[in-house]
């Protein structure tokens, strides 16, 4: 209103667009030392009771998972429910589910870094940790699915006892390379990011075992700018390497299915569809972990409503891509006029034995996230948690639908058989959640949950051109990349 009034005055100087204040990334003008104290305090103070309430059952569940695997080794892979024709069932579903969860961590740490999304700094550390633990859970399933787990070294590129090498033309072997590269690169990326923060922890500890250990892993970091210069280049390189890597990993996982000739699997849409689904499911898990975390540890000034809002938008976007992929699958099944492809989808969605799973998947992944079109839903922690939970379930159903419901009814009807999960299937899967939570809680206990150095770097006072004596005003940091937007802020009367 104000600007239109002035625009009519032709003699005035050209009107510059007024710069809107961006929402600050850290609320309440927090200082550097407040950030250090708050994040290191999580590690240095006693853990809240809730930490123990979650940690002890997680340890028990990890033990139960270990028991299930021992039982499987002692008895045979038949303790799981798969029988012909369903040779891949919960194990591969769980594998794809967990590996997908990891993808959000890499998206936040690498892709959002390359696209200069500075809000990522508050969540990237925890998301990367989640990636690593999720990939650990994922790796367990194919390793035990090989049946004789002591032969799992056959996957490694070394000749076996008969001097036979692996078949490098197989997507299953590509998967071995993709997943192990993904795990290694994620660990390297995570570790390099941790080094300056470990130095912070080292400098705060009293001499003793803790100081020594943090000191060893901090590598003698002394924050020298000649080091930061190389460090930032390394960080950028790792982000640039991880970006195509994360896209390749779930693409390769989808090749496991797409390169087969099973109706319902043999589709070219699988790689982008899987990648979008992975990011979708991963963000839901990030929110599931971070919303309680910020509440319990009082991190609301660092992980603000803005962060949650952004992540909810990513869920909405990727959920809609996933919805598009579901519809496109149906359309191509019809439009290709391929009888088997068409039947595969009719059985999946209309009269197969596992129709409810299909609708559960559709509801959780496509309908539920539509709530995020509304601002109040993105800003209500309760509704964000509810939708994230739906997505967590929905993404598991999606993999179950793709894998199990397809195999149950594929090709010769005489060989069809409905899959029944055994208690070992269920308890093992539950156990991996315990393993995941146990690792994540230990991470909260011993390592900084938020990247201390990176968050300090996005504060307005971290810009060398910020005048420390003039606290209020435009956040220069937000304008640095837009030289044309350097306009004096209008003083409100």
């Amino acid at each position, binding site marked *: 209103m104000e600007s239109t009034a002035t625009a009519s005055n032709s003699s005035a100087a050209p009107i510059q667009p007024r710069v809107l204040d961006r929402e600050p990334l850290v609320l309440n003008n927090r*200082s550097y*030392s407040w950030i*250090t104290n708050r994040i290191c305090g999580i590690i240095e103070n006693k853990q809240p009771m809730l930490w123990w309430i979650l940690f002890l059952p997680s340890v028990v569940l990890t033990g139960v998972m270990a028991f299930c695997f021992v039982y499987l080794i002692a008895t045979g892979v038949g303790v799981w429910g798969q029988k012909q024709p369903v040779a891949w069932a919960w194990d591969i579903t769980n594998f794809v589910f967990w590996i997908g969860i990891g993808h959000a961590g890499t998206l936040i740490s690498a892709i959002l870094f390359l696209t200069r999304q500075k809000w990522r700094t508050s969540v990237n550390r925890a998301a990367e940790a989640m990636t690593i633990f999720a990939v650990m859970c994922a790796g367990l399933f194919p390793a035990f699915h090989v049946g004789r787990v002591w032969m799992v070294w056959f996957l490694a*590129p070394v*000749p076996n006892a008969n*001097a*036979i*090498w692996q*078949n*490098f*033309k*197989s997507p299953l*072997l*590509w998967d071995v*390379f*993709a997943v192990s*590269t993904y795990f*290694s*690169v994620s660990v*390297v*990326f995570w*570790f*390099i990011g941790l080094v*300056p923060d470990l130095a*912070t922890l*080292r*400098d705060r500890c009293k001499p003793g075992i803790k100081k020594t250990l943090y000191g060893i892993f901090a*590598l*003698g*970091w*002394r*924050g*020298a*700018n*000649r*080091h*930061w*210069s190389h*460090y*930032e*280049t*390394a960080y950028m*390189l790792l982000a640039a*390497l991880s970006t*195509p*890597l994360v896209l*390749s990993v779930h693409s*390769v996982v989808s*090749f496991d299915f797409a390169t087969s000739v099973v109706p319902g699997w043999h589709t070219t849409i699988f790689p982008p569809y899987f990648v979008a689904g992975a990011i979708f499911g991963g963000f839901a898990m990030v929110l599931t972990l971070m919303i309680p975390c910020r509440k319990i540890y009082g991190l609301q000034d660092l992980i603000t409503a803005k962060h949650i809002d952004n992540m909810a938008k990513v869920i909405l976007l990727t959920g809609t891509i996933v919805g598009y992929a579901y519809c496109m699958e149906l359309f191509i099944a019809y439009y290709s006029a391929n009888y088997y492809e068409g039947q595969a989808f009719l059985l999946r969605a209309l009269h197969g034995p596992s129709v409810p799973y299909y609708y559960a998947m559709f509801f959780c992944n496509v309908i539920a996230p539509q709530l995020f079109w509304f601002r109040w839903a993105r800003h209500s922690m309760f509704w964000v948690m509810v939708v994230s939970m739906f997505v967590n379930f929905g993404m598991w159903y999606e993999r179950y639908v793709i894998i199990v419901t397809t195999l149950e009814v594929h090709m010769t009807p005489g060989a069809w058989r409905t899959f029944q999960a055994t208690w070992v299937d269920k308890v093992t899967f539950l156990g991996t959640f315990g393993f995941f939570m146990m690792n994540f809680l230990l991470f909260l206990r011993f390592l900084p949950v938020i990247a201390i*150095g*990176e968050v*300090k*770097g996005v504060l307005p*006072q*971290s*810009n*060398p*051109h*910020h005048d*420390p004596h003039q606290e209020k005003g435009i956040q220069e940091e937000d304008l640095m990349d837009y030289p044309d937007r350097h306009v004096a802020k209008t003083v409100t009367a």
Partner: protein
Amino acid sequence: MSTTLKRVHGYLAEFENVHDLYHAAEHVRDAGYQRWDCHSPFPIHGLDQAMGIQRSKLPWLVFCGGITGTTTAFFLQYITQNVLYPTVVQAKPITAIWAIPAWFPVMFELTILFSAFTTLFGLLALIGLPRFNHPIFASKRFAKFSDDTFFVCIEARDPKFSQEGTKAFLEKIGGKHVELVEDDI
């Protein structure tokens, strides 16, 4: 074992904020010092130029690492699939390298893997870490570098270093608590 002998590492000056550090760095650079550094809790945008630091050579190392990964994967697959034990599957040709599209995923993954490890070890080599100790840690105040304080350290090895002149210089450019850092020999 500690002796009474000390070795001078250099002068350490403290700055309260990024703004002051940045301008101090420009002064030190213009004064012609060579062996000096800024210490900060986070990387500061533009400080490399203010200090006159060259761009990192790390990308070249990583490029070489990546190429090594690609060729390793190519020969791993070519030699095992076509020479040592030709595997006839999926109707793919085995006599030449025409099955190469099927090798791309592994070639890509190993390129990334080798590049990432080159990044890690290249970084450590370029910055000379890990090391167990550094004379600068002898300063008690220096521990705050990882919290909220910014430092400039001019080393005694610098040809322009002088016990009085450098101290006066650092104080003139706004350094607080200018301190002679010495460590035990």
